[in-house]
């Protein structure tokens, strides 16, 4: 196990909010409201990160260096200067991979049971 991996393991299991934020930043830099919207769309309205929770998490994740501030992208020239963009760090990406792997293992274990299977959720 290399050092990055050790660093990443420290965050596991990852808090759900942090996981969603990292997923949201995995493909593109976003501002806070953008993260909020992406998470809501991706989870079909299942998860809503309200501002105090979102920025509380962002603050902590900045401190933990899981994410970093990004410069505004080119097409955002007309944006409000208060609006900051966030990008995922290498550590953040590693943590996201580790957590995803961990969750996969968990899910695979559960799926192996016939009672759980791959069926739809019963209403």
């Amino acid at each position, binding site marked *: 196990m290399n050092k990055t991996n050790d660093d990443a393991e420290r965050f596991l299991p990852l808090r759900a909010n942090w996981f969603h934020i990292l997923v949201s930043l995995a493909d593109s830099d976003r501002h806070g*409201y953008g993260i*909020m919207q992406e998470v809501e769309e991706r989870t079909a309205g299942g998860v809503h990160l309200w501002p*105090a*929770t979102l*920025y*509380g998490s962002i*603050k902590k994740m900045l401190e933990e260096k899981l994410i970093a501030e990004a410069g505004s992208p080119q097409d955002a020239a007309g944006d409000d200067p*208060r*609006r900051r963009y966030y990008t995922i760090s290498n550590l953040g990406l590693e943590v996201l991979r580790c957590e995803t792997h961990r969750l996969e293992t968990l899910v695979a274990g559960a799926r192996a049971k016939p009672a759980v299977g791959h069926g739809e959720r019963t209403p």
Partner: protein
Amino acid sequence: MTGFYRLVLWLLPGDLRRDFGPEMLQTVALLSRDPRYQTIGGRLRLLAALTRDGLISAWRTRGADARGGRPLPPSQQPPFPGKATLMDFVWLDLRAALRTLRKNAGFTALAVLTLGLGIGANVAVFGVLNAVLLRPLPYDDPDQLVVLAETFRGNSANASYPNVADWQERADLFEGITGFDDRKVFNLTGGDMPQQVYGASATAGFFDVLGVAPLRGRTFRPDDDVPEAAKVVVLSERLWRDAFGADEQIVGRDLRMNGEPYTVIGVVPASLRIPNREDLWVPLATHPYGDDRLQVRSETILEVIGRLKPGVTLAQGRDQISAIAAALAANHPGELDGRGATAWPLRDDVVGNIEPVLDLMLAAVGIVLLIAVVNVTNMSLARAVTRRREVSLRMALGAGPWRLARGQLIESGVLAVSGGVLGATFASWIVPWVLAMNPDALPTGITVELAPDAAMLAFVAGLVTLSTLGAGLVPVMLTRSRRLTGPLQDGSGAASGGAFATRVRNGLVVVEVALSLVLLAGAALLVQSLTRAARIEPGFATEGLLTARIDLPVTEYDADAQRRFFDQLRERLGGLPRIQSVGLVSRLPLSGATSISAFDVDGMGEVPADERPAAHIRTVGPGYFEALSIPLVRGRTFDENDGVSTFGVIVDEELAEQLWPGEEAIGKQIRESAATPWVPVVGVVGRTRHWGQLFAPTQTLYLPYKMLPEASMHVVLRTEGEPATLTPTLREIVREIDPALPVNDVQSMEERVAGSLARPRFNTALLSVFAAVAVALGALGIYGTIAWSVAQRRREIGVRLALGARQGDVRRMVVAQGLRLTLLGVALGVPAALAAARLIESQLFQIEPTDPATLAAVATAIGAVALAASWLSARQATRVDPLTSLRTE
């Protein structure tokens, strides 16, 4: 929305607010533009979500702060080794608050008592409200249950059996319709001992419509409700327990009722209270009336309840029933002329007109709570000001405003929770007592148990939270604004500073005075209204009258037997020495029951069926008017021959003036319909108020009972001496005529009069108590404020006295200060009281809501109380020894 979110931000840790505040506000601005949050409901949802999010984050992040991160200021250094959580600090604050409160036992007791009074009054009224309005009907899906009734000239009454049968067949918007008749008396044998019980006969669907499941056995099936079916009976849980010792083998047991065999098929729970507290139910068809009235469409003898199908509204159901009734009326001309049908929620029938009263009470106790909270705020503020030095010291040592505010809020929280516990205890003790004293105060069938159900717990929690915030917030805000923190610099303490706090306290006192004035004015209006109502003559002499009801079982008494029974009863009673006169009447004044019929008037010509004159019909015996001392205006009263060999009716002045204004009524003729002969008016008697003093006299037509006997009649005895002493005699004579017959509803007429005013009297008493509490709390507030300001000015007063000011001058100065606040409060309270009086307009009788004399009297009373409170503090002020007061500083 962003303005609101600034408040939420204030909850969050300073660094998060500093680093991300503007960005968060911008995000909230973007969020609020989302189409989902454009409606009012959406806005509220967003508001709730943001608040919840803020509170949860504040809790979590502060907990995280406490666990580590940036170093804590010295005041917040945890005394715990290792990890301390926010809860640890809250616990510390809690202990500090308890310590402080214990040290200031006087303040604590007063504050807890004040809040306890306010919260207790609210819990009590909410408990009743909860029982009456929020969970009134113990039936399945009670909102789908409606009362159906035939209408006739704006009056709605019961319905006839043939009509109900047609409704059942045609009304497809209803899941079921049931008719029942509750005036059934049974002689029951076969239980622990023979007894008289009350029951209702009902159509087969009765229990299914209400959605009541049996405790044992089954309820009616359609084949039980046919004339040739075997006689079956469903018992109430109460009768089952009382008369059969909760016999598990009750189902299938044979009973004898009125001499006939019945089989018990089931037991239903005690919560079923429709129509009243019945002991048992029998199918309508197997319990005939002994005459043909179940076949007559105009005999409205059944009460009717229907259950709307899911999704069908009341209006749709009512329209359908009304359309069916119109079709029936068209098919049965003559019999159903002018008759329609309507529907209203069953809940209205049970809850009745108590809803506005309870709303009023809730508003009143809301004001009491407000005054209580204002008082505690005031007291806390006074303490906050005297604790300025402590606060300054703590701030200087590094305590942040959040920390100080938390301490203050926890302290007011402790007070509020204690007040809540006290109040709830107080309410659970007082409510059953008050209701037991006033059994008529609530609609029948409603029981109030101050059960700590979810609604009640939520309500108490809400009150406690409100009180905590109310009593804690103002001091917290003052702490935050640092207006209280000057004294560490100037060192002079009490004598200077605090001007802002003084203004706030004065403002609060003004509000208190205004609020107590509003309540007192309302109470004064109701008291006067009640006094005036009690003074109104009901149209008959109420003293010395004993009344009782006798219900003859129609299975044993046909019309002739009924006539014979009542003849015999009158004869036996009339021969007794202490009875002056004996009256009989079908519906006693103030009994709350009536029957209205239309008739033809000779000489009026052809009148459309729905415009025929109508009146309240009373069947009376000879001696009725004499017994009640209803004055005979003209003509004669009934004698023994009326209804036998001579025929005549008597009208009251109200009806005579309506039918023949300015003419002689005697000799005019009326008839029930074209099929009956004309009958002359033989007498005119005085007006009576049938419904009670609060209602106008009714137009009444009196018929002799021998012409039209009824199975259920009231006996009225004019007695010498105390009426109640004749009760045993009455029972004995009835027993001599028919040993199986009970005497029901025995009351003196004065008790009935008192009963008819029971509910208004109860409301008035309650509101007066609330007003008294409000005024007492208000006076306490004024006294406290003045006393506090006197204490603040101790040195100044000492100096004045030392320099030769007279005691009288100082007193006048202090009293003037109190008077100024009082006058301001009165000036504010009078318009508020005028506005509030409109709310109780419907409860008022013979008095205008804006009655100037009442308002003036109330304002004067409040002024006097305030003056007394100021004078008390002024007296203390002048007891100041100049030397002592100068030395203390």
